[in-house]
Each structure stands twice: as C-alpha cells, then as structure tokens.
C-alpha cells in the first residue's frame, strides 16, 4: 500500500514518521513517500523560533489542547535521550507578560512549574503589570526537520522534489492514501476560504546572554502582534508581527523597525546584539486545524485523502498530537483494506 505525504514542513515530516513507525512492521507492503517543492531550510517551519507554546485561549477546542499535550509529553519524554540534541530539543524557561490580569491558559498544567510573576520580577518589564513564568520546550526545526528526514530515509521512505498540482496527480499514479500537509498552500489543492496567511517576520540576532523566552501580549491586538524574544541554541529570535491576509514573503523595512524598536524597549541589552539575518513567512492560519479524512473521486478512481493543515502559529506545539491522529485514521483505512496483521495498530 502506498501512502504519499505532500508537504515537508514539521507537519508533513512528523506525520510521515509517525505513520512509518506505527505501521511499517505491521504492513510489509507499506510504502511511504514524501512529495514537496520546498524542503528545510526553506519551509515555513524553519522560520519559527521553535518554542512550544499554544495560543492563550483554546476557544473551547479541547481536541487541539489534547494534541498540544500529547506533543509536549512526547517531546519531554525524549529530553533525557541522546537524540535530544540531534532533534534540536531542549528545555527553556521564560515569561509571558500582560498589561492586565488574564485567566490562566489551557496549557498551564502541561508545561512545568507554571506560576504567576512576583512584583520584583515585573520590575524587569516596565509597562507590564501581570505575567506568567514557566518552563517549556524548544524544538528548532532547522535541526528537527533534518533529523526527521534522516530517520525517514533510514526507514526507506522516498523523497520527491516536486510540486504536486492535484490529488488526482498522485492517486492516479497508484497512491492509496494521500496525506495533505501542504500548510499555507493547501488552497491550491482544494479551495479553503478559511485558510488565510498570518504573515510573520523575525530578526535573528546573536545575544547569548538571553536565557529566557519573553512573550508580551496585547490582548486587544491579538497573538504575535506584540514583541517577543526567544533564545535558540545559536541565535535569538526577535519578533512580533502577525498580519492576517498578507501573502507577501518579502522582508519589510517597516516591520524590521517595529520589531527592533519594540524588542529593544523590552530588553535594553538587545541594543548591543549583532543582527545576523531577517526572515518572513506565512503562518497557515485557520479557525481550527483541518484534520479529517476525505474520499476523493475522479472518474472510476477513488483515493483516500487525510487533511492535516491549518496549524497557524502553533504547528510545532501541536505537531505530534496531529501526527498520531492522522496515523489513527491511516489505521482505519488499513483496517478497511484488511491489510494490518494485527487487529489494532500499536500506539
């Protein structure tokens, strides 16, 4: 049975790996392939700082909160292993800052050591009167994606560098299940007006003295429109841009100024930081993640498509939970085709 994953960002590659890990020994005939026109370091995932942190509110979407938790627990379990460094995975502590008290987030018990900030800590951040401290995880895609690719290659998964123009293109070539992890450009395969770009821009600097993430929030403006500083293993990411509906992937000088001034006001020490590079990308934003199965018919051909896109600015945060959900759907398909050796796939 042939499974084709379209898209090689964090969603595509992790979904491919999850499917491969769960079924390759159960289904000897299973062939997993990855198709993408952009690979690391040219995917949207590569631009992300890599901090595990969901949005402030889950808007009652418990499914997504569960997927976030599954991802965190999965990554936390890998922390003590030798693979952690090769995955680009490490612990990081930091601050979320507000200008007014806010309710605790859905993820307060998922992260480690969540608490409110003390008055002395708030002195560090003039203009902010309320905040949280917690320990979370960083997963740097510039390292994680190559690690995923390596594991997939070792497992015999084939990679194709091409832009898939339609589901039919892939299904008519004999693929049984298509996993649609096309992120921002899912609309090109099947129109989806709910999928819109949330354009972001970041500046990467050298600031090794920054050991904490600092995310500010302006509850009125919305997520990622307020400055944030996230230290990685090599560079520190400065950001604070979210432009709904803007498809432009070019860096904007105005946005650079906004990010730089706001972040330096937040952390005066950044004025001495050396700027290394600038990057823009499009968060594949959607009111909720589209993760569902669809049967696509074309003439007498039929293919199963499993959609897994629309993860906005929380792709890394939610990726493994979604990958496992897709794998379960693949399991149902295998059941239907009576291809699995044992009645239930190992989770």
């Amino acid at each position: 049975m042939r499974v084709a994953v379209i898209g090689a960002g964090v969603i595509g590659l992790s979904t491919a790996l999850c499917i491969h890990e769960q079924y390759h020994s159960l289904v000897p005939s299973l062939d997993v392939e990855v198709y993408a026109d952009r690979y690391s370091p040219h995917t949207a995932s590569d631009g992300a700082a890599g901090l595990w942190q969901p949005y402030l509110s889950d808007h009652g979407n418990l499914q997504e909160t569960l997927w976030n938790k599954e991802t965190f627990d999965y990554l936390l379990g890998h922390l003590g292993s030798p693979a952690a460094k090769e995955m680009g995975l490490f612990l990081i502590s930091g601050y979320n800052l507000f200008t007014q008290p806010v309710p605790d987030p859905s993820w307060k018990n998922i992260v480690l050591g969540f608490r409110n900030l003390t008055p002395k800590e708030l002195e560090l951040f003039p203009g902010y009167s309320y905040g949280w401290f917690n320990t979370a995880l960083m997963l740097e895609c510039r390292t994680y994606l190559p690690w995923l690719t390596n594991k997939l290659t070792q497992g015999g998964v084939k990679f194709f560098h091409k832009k898939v123009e339609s589901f039919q293109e892939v299904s008519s070539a004999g693929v049984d299940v298509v996993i649609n992890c096309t992120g921002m450009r899912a609309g090109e395969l099947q129109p989806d007006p709910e999928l819109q770009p949330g354009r972001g821009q970041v500046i990467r600097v050298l600031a090794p003295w920054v050991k904490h993430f600092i995310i500010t929030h302006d509850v009125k403006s919305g997520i990622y429109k307020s400055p944030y500083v996230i230290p990685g293993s090599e560079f520190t990411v400065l950001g604070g841009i979210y432009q709904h509906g803007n498809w432009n992937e070019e860096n904007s000088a105005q946005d650079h100024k906004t990010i730089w001034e706001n972040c330096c006001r937040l952390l005066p020490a950044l004025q001495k930081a050396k700027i290394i590079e600038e990057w823009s990308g499009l968060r594949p934003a959607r009111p909720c993640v589209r993760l569902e199965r669809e049967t696509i018919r074309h003439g007498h051909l039929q293919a199963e498509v499993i959609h897994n896109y629309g993860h906005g600015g929380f792709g890394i945060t939610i990726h493994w939970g979604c990958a496992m959900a897709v794998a379960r759907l693949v399991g149902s398909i295998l059941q239907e085709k009576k291809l699995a050796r044992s009645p239930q796939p190992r989770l």
Partner: protein
Amino acid sequence: MAAPKVAVVGAGVIGLSTALCITETCPSCSVTVLADQFSPNTTSDVAAGMLIPHTYPGTPIHVQKQWFKETFTYLFAISNSAEASEAGIHLVSGWQVFKNTPKEELPFWSDVVLGFRPMSEAELQKFPQHQFGQAFTTLKCDCPSYLLWLEKRLKATGVQMYTRRVADLWDLRSEYNIVVNCAGIGARQLVGDENLFPVRGQVLKVHAPWVKNFIRDGDGLTYVYPGLPRVTLGGTREKDVWSLSPDPDTTQDIFDRCCSLEPSLQEAQDIKVKVGLRPSRQCVRLQKEVFSQGGLKLLVVHNYGHGAGGFSVHRGTAKEAARLVRECIATLHGSSLRAKL
C-alpha cells in the same frame, strides 16, 4: 591635606569592585590597583559567577544577607540595562535539587532571588535520583567579561592599574596612605593569615548552547551553569589542596556527574578544564588594621576570604570596605589636624 592615596592590592572581583566603590564614595581619593595577576588569570576568571550565596559560619546571617542583597540589586540593575552584554550579567533560571530533603528548606537568600519556590512533582521527574528541589531565577556574571567591564569603568574614573607583585604591604607605605588588601588566596602569604586556606575547585567550561537552565545539586559539588556562551560544569571542593594543575580523573568524574543531572551534556563540545583556589575562611576578613613600625603607621583595610561566595557578596563587601576606607581617611585627617595643633 592632599588627596588620600589608596592602593588596592588584588585585581579579582573583590579588588576591582572594591576599587570602584572607593572611587564612588571617596571621589577625592587617588586609587591605584596593584596585582600580580589581572583577568583572565585571576581566581575570579575560573568561577562560574552564579549568585547563589555560600554560608560563612563565622558571619551573622543578617550581614551575609545584606551583602547578597546589595550585590543582587546592583547586578539586577545592570542586567536590565544596555550595559548587560558588555558587563556579562544575565538572568538565569533553574533548579537546586537534593537527594535528601534538607533540614533547612528555606535558605536565608530565598527572598532575594526571584520566584523562589519548591519544585513541582513534574519538575522533579527530570531528576530521578533527587527527592526535593527548589526552583528560582538568579543572576550570573560572565566573570572575564565582568572583570574587563570593571577595569574599563575604573580607567574611566582615572584609576591606574599596575602589574606588580606586592610581597609585603609595608612596602607600600612610602607611596600610599591607605592599603586595601583584596589579595584573595594571596593573603595567606601576604599577611600570614593561617585562618585562610584554599578549597581547590576544578571546573569544565564546555560548548553546549542548548542548555538554558542551571542545575545545582544541593550538596554544592555538582552543578551545571549556562554562561556566555560556555556552560560551566563542576566541580570539586578540596580543602587545603594548592595544585592548580587540572586532574584528568577529576575531569571525567565531573563530566559524568553533570551528565547524570543533564544527559544532553554528553553532546557537549570543546571541553576546557580550569582550576581555581577558593580563598576560604570561617568568615570574610573585612576589618581595619593599623600596621606600625618605628613611629610610622600604615592604615590597612582587609577584604578577603570570600571562599566560594565571592561573586554573590562582592558588591556588599566592597561597599563595606569603602566605608572602612572613609573611616581611615577620617583618621588620617584627624591625625593631620592634631599634627597642626
């Protein structure tokens, strides 16, 4: 009388910060720093520079707490300013973990550091060999950067610094009115203080930039301190050992102990080994002394013996030493007045 001439002997964190405090509190003084070693060859350069106090058995707790608080407040302000990167001061969060729950669950400094609280069960799961822990945020000095920054500020105020091995404080009497003894472990020989003894510490400085949190075993022997940009792995506390040569077996032992606290350190690169001798004493010697020979006098202020806690209390003891220098100046002034009468 002419501007008092003050010599500060020693250019580690204590000597340089004391010299700086003296220029701040006695702007009319002429201050000179004399040392046989400057950064990067002082004991301070080896230290991790974490603001976690060491308890001195011979000093009242409220005094130690005052010193720590002054130091913390001073560095907190720098860490929050544009100077932070040059001074090498940054905030760092992490955990102090204990194999056995300590008798004293709240150390005297728990309300000086930020966000101090016991670790949650979930956090403790990361440390299977440890039963109890404390999470907090504190400050760290990148010692070589901080010393250079202090030197720069001293030069800006006109302080001269000379490489000179002072064998006897009395030798300075003809050139200086007041001598401040910040010789650290050198004070053993310089003033013959048998109460001062080395506690040898070997550390590894490694490249592991993904380590963002500190981890310290409550026994004080094993610690992982992320820095700028190297991570300090420690350590040892060898009383009365004077050797400055790195010991390879010790290196392996430190590495193993730190990897058991933080497994990802197995991937650490470019391991550099350093050794320092903590200038240890029951209590910090922070007092005035008058040296007399013939009819001649030399006013001395001692500020040494900070052991494992130098960085944690340096500004507090420097301020106290500067206050003692002011008292000495008043004494000199009084004597010169009396001489006129």
